[in-house]
């Protein structure tokens, strides 16, 4: 817990963030708004840049710089949609571009020192609710009034079971995202606590020798504070590569993949073409020929 002195009172870091501008809202909500603002500003900059490059006919040459990465990201998201969803969902490329950008940055936002977004259950729950609403909209779009038959299949008595089952995608995606993030936070926090105490115990005598020890020797946390930094940095970096970057990338992909799969499942399967229309069956020879 970081302590910040404000107006002769000691407040928690999260309290300071939550009461920024005297608004008194949850601290991770500020982080979420910041991430949305960053992603929106980047998207506007890239959009204007791409429009100017198109007008200058820069598409005739190989793109370079930031536009190269923007094109790669667009092709990744559009290819993801085309591969996993098929026809009728082409416009969802933009939705997945926003989702992947927000989710990956939000998963790793704790690395900046600001309150983590996905550690706050409301954030993955909101994303899961958006996904749920989109799935139901696709169900109504493809099935119209037949959409309501799913709740009474196979028999009407299954209505309560189906009504509960319909919420399972929200719970599974929300808890998966939240659990992965908070598990990483707890494991990294525990190891950081252990390494800082171990470092203070091993190197604490250095502060005594350097005469910078202003705290009594029984106050281990403060008397060895400058020596707590020796053991933690490298393991923290390595752990964050797995728990933040790799795990964030995998969970973002899994969330998007499940989102795409559940939306694409709402489209009814195409019926098998009738025998007369099939191309692989040779036509019967007639007497006239």
């Amino acid at each position, binding site marked *: 817990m970081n302590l910040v002195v404000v107006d002769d009172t000691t407040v928690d870091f999260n309290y300071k963030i939550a009461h920024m501008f005297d608004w008194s809202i949850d601290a991770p909500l500020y982080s979420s708004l910041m991430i949305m603002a960053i992603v929106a500003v980047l998207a506007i900059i890239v959009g204007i840049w791409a429009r100017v490059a198109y007008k200058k006919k820069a598409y005739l040459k190989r793109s370079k710089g930031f536009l190269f990465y923007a094109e790669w990201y667009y092709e990744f998201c559009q290819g993801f949609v085309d591969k996993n969803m098929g026809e009728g969902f082409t416009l969802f490329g933009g939705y997945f571009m926003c989702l992947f950008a927000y989710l990956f940055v939000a998963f790793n936002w704790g690395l900046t020192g600001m309150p983590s977004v996905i550690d706050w259950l409301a954030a993955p729950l909101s994303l899961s609710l958006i996904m749920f609403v989109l799935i139901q909209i696709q169900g109504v779009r493809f099935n119209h009034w037949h959409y309501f038959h799913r709740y009474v299949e196979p028999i009407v008595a299954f209505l309560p079971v189906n009504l509960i089952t319909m919420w399972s995608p929200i719970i*599974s995606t929300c*808890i*998966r995202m*939240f*659990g*992965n993030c*908070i*598990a990483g936070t*707890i494991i990294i926090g525990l190891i950081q606590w252990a390494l800082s105490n171990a470092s203070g115990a091993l190197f604490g005598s250095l502060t005594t020798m350097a005469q910078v020890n202003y705290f009594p020797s029984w106050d281990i946390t403060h008397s060895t504070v400058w020596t707590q930094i020796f053991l933690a940095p490298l393991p923290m970096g390595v752990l964050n590569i797995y728990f933040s970057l790799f795990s964030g990338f*995998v*969970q973002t*992909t*899994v969330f998007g*993949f499940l989102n795409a799969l559940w939306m694409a499942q709402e489209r009814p399967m195409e019926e098998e073409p009738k025998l007369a229309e099939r191309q692989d069956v040779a036509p019967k020879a007639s007497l006239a020929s």
Partner: protein
Amino acid sequence: MTTIGMCALAAAIAVAFGCLSAIGESLIICHAIDGMARNPEMQPKLQSTMIIGVALDESTAIYCLVIAILILFVTTSMA
């Protein structure tokens, strides 16, 4: 047995059952490696499918971990 002791035991049992997902993960990876050995040119597609399968299987263990965290931090403070 004290309340905190029972909370700790409940959290340990929850995480112990969550570890059973490791069996599923090992089966996923085993069959993916078999496929890659039989068909090396499909290796990138098999690898990405394997990672998605492992992440989905690991979510069961994560649910158990979240319940254990709830028991340890929320139920203990309520008690």
